[in-house]
């Protein structure tokens, strides 16, 4: 079990570095560190992230968006090790600026060859990138309904003028 954990750890670490670089920059550095290599099944795990030439001393020094992007890189690293048949994101793009929302959606497009993705969002860029949109709305007071929507029609649809 210890062997398996170590092998998995180093593979996920490889994936993390690769995904991190595609979300930040090719020269940006990051790392995953097993704090107690002798005892991996009990060990804590450190995340080091150094976007764009900065030298933050810990994750907490990163900005809101940088933290979200770093955690997302790690989640995708796990995904690459053992792809799940589908993934669900609930407003994960909320703290991201436009450029990073595009990168996030590009990675999803790439992985969507192998898995399905369900993305809950308020973000217009993300809405333009998905394959289909479902609009959720309140039918009566307090009762939800769902209906497919066309992004190009979104500004005119009476339901969606409610949504947007």
């Amino acid at each position, binding site marked *: 079990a210890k062997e*398996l*954990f170590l092998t*998995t*750890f180093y593979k*996920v670490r490889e994936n993390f570095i690769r995904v991190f670089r595609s979300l930040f920059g090719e020269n940006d550095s990051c790392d995953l560190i097993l704090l107690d290599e002798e005892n991996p099944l009990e060990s*804590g*795990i450190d*995340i080091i992230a150094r976007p764009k030439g900065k030298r933050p001393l810990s*994750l907490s020094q990163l900005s809101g968006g940088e*933290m979200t992007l*770093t*955690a997302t890189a*790690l*989640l995708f690293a*796990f*995904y690459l*090790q*053992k*792809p*799940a*048949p*589908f*993934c*669900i*994101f*609930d*407003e*994960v793009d*909320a703290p991201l600026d436009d450029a990073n929302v595009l990168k996030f959606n590009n990675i*999803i*497009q790439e992985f*969507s060859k192998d898995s*399905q*993705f*369900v*993305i*809950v*969002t308020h973000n217009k860029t*993300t*809405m333009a990138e*998905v*394959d*289909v*949109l*479902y*609009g*959720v*709305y*309140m*039918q*009566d*007071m*307090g*009762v*939800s*309904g*769902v209906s497919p*929507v066309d992004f190009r029609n979104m500004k005119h649809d009476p339901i969606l003028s*409610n*949504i947007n």
Partner: protein
Amino acid sequence: MRLKKLEIKGFKSFANATVLNFNENVVGVVGPNGSGKSNIVDAIRWVLGEQKGKELRLDNKSDVIFNGASTKKPAGVAQVSITFSNTKNLLPTEYNEVKLSRYLYRNGDSEYHLNGVKCRLKDIHNLLIDTGIGSNSYAIIALGMVEDILKDKDHARRKMFEQVS
């Protein structure tokens, strides 16, 4: 293994029978604040066997049952069904299509069905165990999971490594 369909009735704000089809690869869910988007995510977790109230934003188990609104009485039962096509035979069953259903009644009774046949929650957990979509898996990524990774709450990071080993 592909997601095909989700059916919700009496679950949280979805008082009326609601169907979502998943034919595409990347599905966006949009709508105003409070319309029910996160409730759809909760419904998927719940039917896959989620038991932790905190993950489903519940104070009590019965909070998943539609609790009424000014023009509609409370529901007697919450029901969610999810249908997969068993491509790549990821699910350890000879069926091509797998439908999981979960019911919770006001009196506290619970039911679980696998392709229309009553089963135990345990059977659902066993079915999903190798697929990576057990209700705790990293594949369901609410904004909160990003936070678990960053804060490493309850060894969240190590648990995720174990899940993919």
